[in-house]
C-alpha cells in the first residue's frame, strides 16, 4: 500500500498484510544457497514464537476441553466448557460490554482524531507541541491511565465531580453505577487513544494533495463539501487501518479496566478478556483454568475474524489499486 504517497515516506495506514505482503518467488540455485542462511536467521525468532505463541494456541484448545481448577489434577470434560459458556449469563454480559465499549470508543475516537488532525493540519503556531501533548497519553501505561482515571472519576473526592460541583451539578456515581462506570472507562480510553487516531489521520491528510482541493474550490465546493467529497474518501486507507487497529485494541482492553474498575461494579465493566482473567486467575473468580482457556479460545476466534476481514479487504483493494 502507498506508504510513499505524496513524496513522503511517512507510514500511511500500513497495517499487517498490506502492500508488499508477498514477495515473488525466486529461482533455483540462489534459493537453495540462501535456505540455510535464512533458517539460521529465522530460528531464534521461530523458536520463541512456536514455543510461546503457537504451542499455547494449540494447548489452549486442549485445555478448553478440560476441567482444570486452580488446585488438583485436570480431567477431560469434552465440550462441556463450551456448553457452560453459552449458558453463562455473565459471559454474554461481558461480551455485550465488550461490544458496547468497542462501539463507543472506536468511531468516537476516530471522529475526534480526525477532527483534531484536520485542526492541526496546515500552518498553526505551536503545532508540534500540541501534537506531542495529544500523543503523550499513548506512551503511558494502561495501569497509569487506569489509576489516574480512578482518581479523577472518584465519586466523592475526584476532580470531575468536584468540577461539576463548582457549577452546582451533583456528579454521577462513577463507581457505584454500572452505566457511569462504563462511561468513565470509555472517556479514559478515548483520552489515551485519540492521539493515535490523530496521528494516522495527520499522516493521511498529508497525502491529500492541495491540487485536488484547489480543483474542488474552483468547482465551488464549500469547506464541508470538500472535506466530505474529497478529503474523507481519500483518507480511506487510513480510516480502514484505524478501524482495524482500534477494533482489536478496544476488543482486547485489559490494563486500564483492571486498574480502574477491576470490572465492577458487579460485572458492569467486565470485558471478555477481564472475564477470562477473572475465571482463571483472579482471587475473586472461580479458579477454573479450563473455563478461562475456553473464553481464551473464543477471544482468539474473534480476533482472527477481524484479522481475516482486514486481509480480505486489503487484498481486494490491492487488486483494485
Amino acid at each position, binding site marked *: 500500500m502507498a506508504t510513499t504517497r505524496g513524496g513522503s515516506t511517512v507510514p500511511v495506514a500500513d497495517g499487517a498484510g498490506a502492500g508488499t505482503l508477498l514477495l515473488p518467488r525466486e529461482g533455483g540455485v540462489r534459493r537453495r544457497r540462501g535456505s540455510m542462511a535464512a533458517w539460521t536467521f529465522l530460528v531464534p525468532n521461530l523458536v520463541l514464537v512456536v514455543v510461546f505463541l503457537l504451542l499455547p494456541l494449540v494447548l489452549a484448545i486442549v485445555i478448553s476441553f478440560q476441567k482444570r481448577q*486452580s*488446585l*488438583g489434577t485436570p480431567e477431560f470434560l469434552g465440550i462441556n466448557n463450551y456448553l457452560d459458556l453459552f449458558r453463562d449469563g455473565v459471559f454474554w454480559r461481558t461480551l455485550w460490554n465488550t461490544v458496547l465499549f468497542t462501539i463507543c470508543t472506536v468511531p468516537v475516537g476516530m471522529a475526534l482524531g480526525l477532527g483534531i488532525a484536520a485542526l492541526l493540519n496546515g500552518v498553526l503556531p505551536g503545532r508540534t507541541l500540541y501534537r506531542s501533548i495529544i500523543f503523550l497519553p499513548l506512551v503511558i501505561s494502561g495501569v497509569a491511565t487506569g489509576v489516574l482515571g*480512578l482518581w479523577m472519576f472518584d*465519586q*466523592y*473526592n475526584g476532580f470531575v465531580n468536584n468540577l461539576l460541583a463548582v457549577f452546582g451539578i*451533583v456528579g454521577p*456515581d462513577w*463507581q*457505584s*453505577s*454500572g452505566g457511569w462506570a462504563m462511561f468513565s472507562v470509555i472517556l479514559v480510553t478515548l483520552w489515551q487513544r485519540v492521539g493515535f487516531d490523530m496521528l494516522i489521520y495527520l499522516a493521511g491528510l498529508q497525502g491529500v494533495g492541495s491540487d485536488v482541493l484547489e480543483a474542488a474550490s474552483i468547482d465551488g465546493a464549500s469547506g464541508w463539501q470538500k472535506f466530505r467529497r474529497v478529503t474523507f474518501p481519500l483518507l480511506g486507507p487510513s480510516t480502514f487501518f484505524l478501524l482495524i487497529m482500534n477494533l482489536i485494541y478496544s476488543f482486547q482492553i485489559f490494563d486500564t479496566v483492571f486498574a480502574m474498575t*477491576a*470490572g*465492577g*461494579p*458487579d460485572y458492569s465493566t467486565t470485558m471478555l478478556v477481564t472475564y477470562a482473567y477473572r475465571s482463571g*486467575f*483472579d*482471587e*475473586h*473468580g*472461580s*479458579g477454573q483454568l479450563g473455563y478461562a482457556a475456553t473464553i481464551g479460545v473464543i477471544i482468539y476466534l474473534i480476533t482472527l475474524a477481524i484479522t481475516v476481514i482486514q486481509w480480505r479487504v486489503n487484498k481486494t483493494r490491492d487488486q483494485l489499486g
Partner: protein
Amino acid sequence: MEINRRKFVTGSLGAAAMLGLSGCSSVHSNSSDSTSAGGSTTAPVTAASTSSSAGPVGSSSAGSASALPATAAPSTPPPSSSAPVKGALSFAFWGGSDGELKGFTYVKQKFEAANPGTTINLKVVPYDGFFAGIDRGIQAGNAPDVFRVDYTSIGKYSGKGVLLDVSPYFDAAAAAAFLPALWEGIKFNGVPYGVPHQTDTTCIVYDKAAFATAGITSVPSSLADAWTWDEFSQVATKLRATLPAKKFPFAYDWTQAGAFRWLSWLYQAGGTLLTPDLKKVALPSDAATLAMDYTKSFFTNKWTPASATIKTSQYSDNFFLSQIVPMSFVGDFLVPELADPKAGYKGDWGATFLPKNRGAAADLGGNAIVALKNTKNPDLAAAFLKFLVSEDMMKYFCEQAIELPTLKSLASANLNYVSRPDVVKICAEQASTISDTIVRESTVGSFATINTVLQDQLELAFHGKSSADAIAGIASGVSAALGA
C-alpha cells in the same frame, strides 16, 4: 498502658472473650482438653500454666501474665524443643499493616537466631490476590513452604490435601494450649493442618466530633449496652441528617473476601447459614430476610456510600480514612493503620461494639499459619510453625498488630498493645460474641466457595435484587458448594 484482659473478659457473657470461644466450642471439641468448659471464668489461670509447660517450643512464659516491658522481648531465647533444624524456608504472608510486618520480621529474626543454620525467606504478597498466587505456586511446584491463611479459606487447602499434617509435631498437650475452637478451626476430618496464629474481629470506630455534631452523646462502653439495631438505625439517621450529601453515616467491612462478615447480621437476627449438622443450608429464613432487608436499607437510606458494596476496591477503612464516613466497621487488625500518626485518621476517634438484635454476634477473623505437605523440610517447617505460636512470639506479634492471641495462656495475659489499647479492649470483648455456631460454620471446608457465593449475591442484592431472590440465590449457591 497495660490491659489485663481478664478484667473485662470475666465480667461479660459467661465464658467471655476468647474464652467464650473456647467455652462454647469445647462442646464439639475432640481434644481431651476440658479446662475451659462453658461457664467457667477461672480457667485461664490454669490454662496459662498448662500451656507454658506443654507449650510448643517450651518458651518461658509462666511469668508473662505479669507486666512485661513494652518491647516484650522474650526473656530467654526459646530453645528448640526437638533436634536442631537447618535449611531454608520460604514464608509467604500479606502484611495487613506495618504492625504485622514488624511482627513477622521479628519472628524471623528470632527464629534464625535460635536455630543457627536456618534461613526464613519472607515473601510479602498483597492480600488481594494472595490465595490465587498461592494456588499458582502450588501448581507450579514453587509455592512457599509456609504461608498464612485465614480460617475461612483454610478448608480449601486442607480439603485438597496440600497441607502438612502437623499432628506428629503437636501432641495433645500442645494442642490443648490453644483455644479449642480455633484449634478445631484448623482441622480437617479430625487432622490438624497448621497452627492458629491470631484472631481478630470487627468493631465500630467513629469520629467523636461528628458524633457530637449529630447529637449522639452516649456510645456503648460495654457489650451489654451495645446498640440494638433500632438504636443503631437512630444513630445512622442522626448522622445522615447532619452530613452533607457527599458523606455517609458508615461503611461496613464486607468488601470482597469480607463478604462473609455480612453473616454477622444474620446471626444477630437469630439465624444461621447452615443446619446444625453443617450439611445443609438453613436458608431461607425469617432471620435472613430480616438481615437482608436491613442491610439493603443501608443503601436505600443512603447510610452507606453507594460504592461501599461488596465488589469495590474501597474498603471500609478507606472510607473512614478519607473522611467519607464518620463511622466504620473495621477489623481490629486495621487499628495500627488508623492510629498511625502520619497516614492514620485525622481526628479524635473511638470505638464501640457491633449492634445486636435477637443476639449479639461478630465475625471470626484471624489467620492460621500452614505448611505445605510437600515442603522439602517438613521438620523445619513444623519447627517454624511451633516457634510462630510460641508464647513470646505470639505475644509480640499481637501487641504490634493489635490482634488477639490464640493461646489460652495469652488470652488471660497482659498484652502491651502498641496503639489504642482502648480499641483492643472493645474488640476483645466483642470477640466473646463469636459463638460456637459461627466458628463451626465459618470453618467448613467449602467456606471459601460459600464466600464467593455471598460476594455475588450480596452485590446483586445491594444493587437492587430483592431480598427473597438474593436469599434464594445464596441458598442454592451454598447448597451447591456443600454438595461439591
